[in-house]
């Protein structure tokens, strides 16, 4: 009776099981292999779509970051900015506060600097101007980060939507400022104070970006210590892991949310300052250039460890610069570069699955089949 009513189905061939931790060198071996596979896949795509030699393309990618001294410093500068924004979003994300507004926080922080740089200009000593810009940017970033946190703490609003919307407000404010400041009606603002260099961060040892890089390096260490060894860092991890546990041990959850978003916003504001005073000396809607979102990926990939973030942001910046380089050198559409970047990052993230899980063959019912 049963054999009639039940259709025999084949047993599943494989099943997935969670691994119980993995030795570090095996994990890195898997990561290494996945990068190699991603390069092979990219090679197939390069050959089939463009008929270029993939090795030459990869060589060009490396040259994009390490080709010349100028490119190398530019790469470090990009790295510093991306890392700085990643450090900014990390405490918020570790607390499970989905801050999608880093873009706007950076932009508004930068705008605050630019207001002083443009309007006050040479009227006060440069050192005072720069300090004032620094403070203004940090405050600007704090305001942009604090608003959603206050609403979340008080009324339980959704922080992802709130922070995301704040981005658009910042973009519009910048557009408005440029419209007011640039008399010709052009939407592009040229270098500000290019004669007097008022409000420009000075060169250090002849290197334009060295101050930026040093500030971010110090910040990385500070953030690492803050998250791992300070009481505040401990509190925000507990809130992120379980709000109930936090309440149970008497942590004031609202206070921690607000405090952490002040910190997150402040560092975003600092990034805006570094971009305006140290790098661009002008402002545009694309000041943050999507780094506010890329930073989220950098932070998660590094599992919120600031030291690891140096590595993950290096990978991202390297790929971005390499992509730009091959686009110009081989006269390719930038979309191809984006495809390659996407494939490589897909493999880097995807291999974490194989580090956390294993796939096993099902062996059952040898007899009677």
């Amino acid at each position, binding site marked *: *009776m*049963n*054999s009639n*009513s*039940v259709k*025999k*189905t084949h*047993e*599943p061939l494989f*099943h997935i*099981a*969670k*691994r*119980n*931790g993995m030795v570090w060198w095996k994990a890195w071996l898997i990561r290494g292999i996945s990068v190699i596979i991603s390069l092979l896949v990219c090679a197939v795509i390069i050959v089939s779509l463009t008929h270029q030699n993939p090795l030459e393309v990869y060589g060009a990618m490396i040259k994009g970051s390490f080709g010349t001294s100028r490119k190398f410093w530019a790469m470090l500068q990009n790295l510093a900015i991306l890392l700085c924004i990643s450090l900014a979003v990390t405490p918020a994300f570790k607390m499970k506060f989905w801050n999608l507004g880093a873009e706007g926080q950076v932009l508004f922080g930068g705008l605050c600097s630019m207001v002083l740089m443009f309007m006050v200009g040479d009227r006060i000593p440069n050192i005072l101007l720069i300090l004032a810009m620094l403070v203004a940017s940090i405050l600007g970033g704090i305001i942009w980060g604090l608003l959603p946190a206050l609403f979340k703490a008080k009324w339980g609003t959704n922080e992802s939507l709130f922070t995301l919307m704040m981005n658009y407000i910042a973009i519009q404010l910048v557009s408005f400022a440029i419209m007011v400041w640039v008399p010709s009606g052009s939407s592009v603002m040229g270098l500000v104070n290019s004669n007097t260099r008022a409000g420009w961060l000075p060169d250090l040892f002849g290197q334009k970006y060295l101050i930026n890089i040093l500030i971010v390096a110090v910040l990385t260490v500070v953030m690492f210590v803050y998250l791992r*060894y*300070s*009481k*505040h860092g*401990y*509190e925000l*991890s*507990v809130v992120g*892991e*379980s709000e*109930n*546990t936090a*309440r*149970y*041990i*008497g*942590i*004031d959850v609202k206070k921690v949310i607000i405090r952490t978003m002040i910190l997150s916003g402040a560092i975003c504001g600092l990034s805006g300052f570094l971009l305006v005073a140290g790098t661009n000396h002008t402002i545009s809607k694309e000041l943050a250039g999507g780094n506010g979102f890329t930073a989220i990926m950098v932070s998660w990939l590094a599992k919120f460890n600031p030291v690891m973030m140096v590595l993950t942001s290096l990978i991202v910046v390297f790929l971005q610069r390499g992509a730009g380089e091959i686009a110009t050198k081989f006269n390719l559409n930038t979309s191809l570069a984006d495809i390659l970047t996407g494939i490589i990052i897909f493999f880097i993230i995807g291999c974490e699955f194989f580090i956390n899980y*294993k796939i096993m063959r*099902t*062996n*059952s*019912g040898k*007899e*009677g089949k």
Partner: protein
Amino acid sequence: MSTPAIELKNITKTFGSITANKNVCLTVNSGEILSLLGENGSGKTTLMNMISGIYFPDAGQIFIDGKEAVIRSPKDAFDYKIGMIHQHFKLVDIFTAAENVVLGLKEDGKYNIKEVEKKVAEISSRYGFEISPSKKIYEMSVSEKQTVEIIKVLYRGANILILDEPTAVLTPQETQKLFAVLRKMKEDGKAIVIITHKLHEVLDISDRVSVLRKGEYIGTLNTAETNEAELTEMMVGKKISLDINRSEPENCVDRLKVESLNCIDSDGVKVLSDISFTARGGEILGVAGIAGSGQKELLEAIAGLQKYDSGSIIYSDPKSGKDVNLKNKSPYQIKELGVRLSFVPEDRLGMGLVGNMDITDNMMLRSYRKGRGAFLKRNAPRELAKTIVKDLEVVTPSINTPIRRLSGGNVQKVLVGREISLSPSVLMTAYAVRGLDINSSYLIYNLLNSQKEKGVAVIFVGEDLDVLIDLCDKIMVLSSGAVTGIVDAKTTTKEELGRLMTKNSKGGADSEQ
């Protein structure tokens, strides 16, 4: 007995490095009740889930009525006429009993709820269920919901019924009713497997009993020829004494006075009504009640996690002798007032501990504020972690292992160990031994007893009435958020407690509304 209804041969199932079942062989005959006995984590539920199509075995064979079966989904299981009643019910709240019964069935012809109700009533009268087919699920008590689940599988023509810990949520009276129904089904020729870890139920209901230990099949006995001691030994692997050493309470002093506590939750439902009691130092006060009768809210109100509308909670400080009012204080304020209150909450990893942190950092939860400066001091918590791991025999690779990787019993040892290390004067525990093996359970009972002897006021919220009666000095019974009695544990009976547990409620719905 010709061919067995179910025969399992060398079933193996692993999850990662954990072997849940290893070469398990088992037979169940038609017209018998088989108890599947084992401690928590011994693989009982996993084994039955493979019969009911939720998991697929890594190796081994399943024979149904003598023919090999491949069961890949609950639907396959149903085609083999196997029905499983899970611990957590899978019912749609706003549907009636009859609607839930036919839900998901693909029958030919028109959907006719009247016909279904008639058939449900027929099944009910045949086996002695008391249920109204048109009653909505949300109006039902836990035992009625369970009845619907059972009817659901019977309606689908199940000949093999598997019940996963069916008595865990029932009062003693409801348990007896369920057993009567099961006996009728047995007479009707059905094969019934009941998963349990309660020995007296095994002896009460089953014809045979199969024992699993740590995923391995230990043996099968005829129930009539065995006893509790033998079964325990099979379950645990060694002889174990099942007596809890209850000492006489000495020098009792009133420690915590709760008076006319009323609490309405965010949905506007009254969860605590007019609760008054006194917890005395040197005594264990048990709290009994059906799950969700206000136990959680009561403990959380005392701990400062639950706001309440009226009433007072007064703590008497053993050092100064002064009374401290805890009304609507936050946990931090309570601590700052010098109240030594320890709390082992029901949700261990979601409230008492942080699963992703290691043992040291979990120790620090209670003490990280100590010391000046902005930085953490991990030395003292690390020492405490080492001490607890050693004293309470916590099985862990190291004190740096994230706590979610530990087994349930070890997690609980860490939590209880930490709370006791605070040298409390009031110790509250909610379901302190849920999911723990017998050894760990007795370790916890002994810890609570030694706290009591030190003069701590222990509040023990429990679910196993036998344990409550053996461990506690007094037992307070909650029903629908109200106290229905405070009885002396030495003189009370399970029947009396069961009666008090349902005194206030009619069919599970709140009587006061």
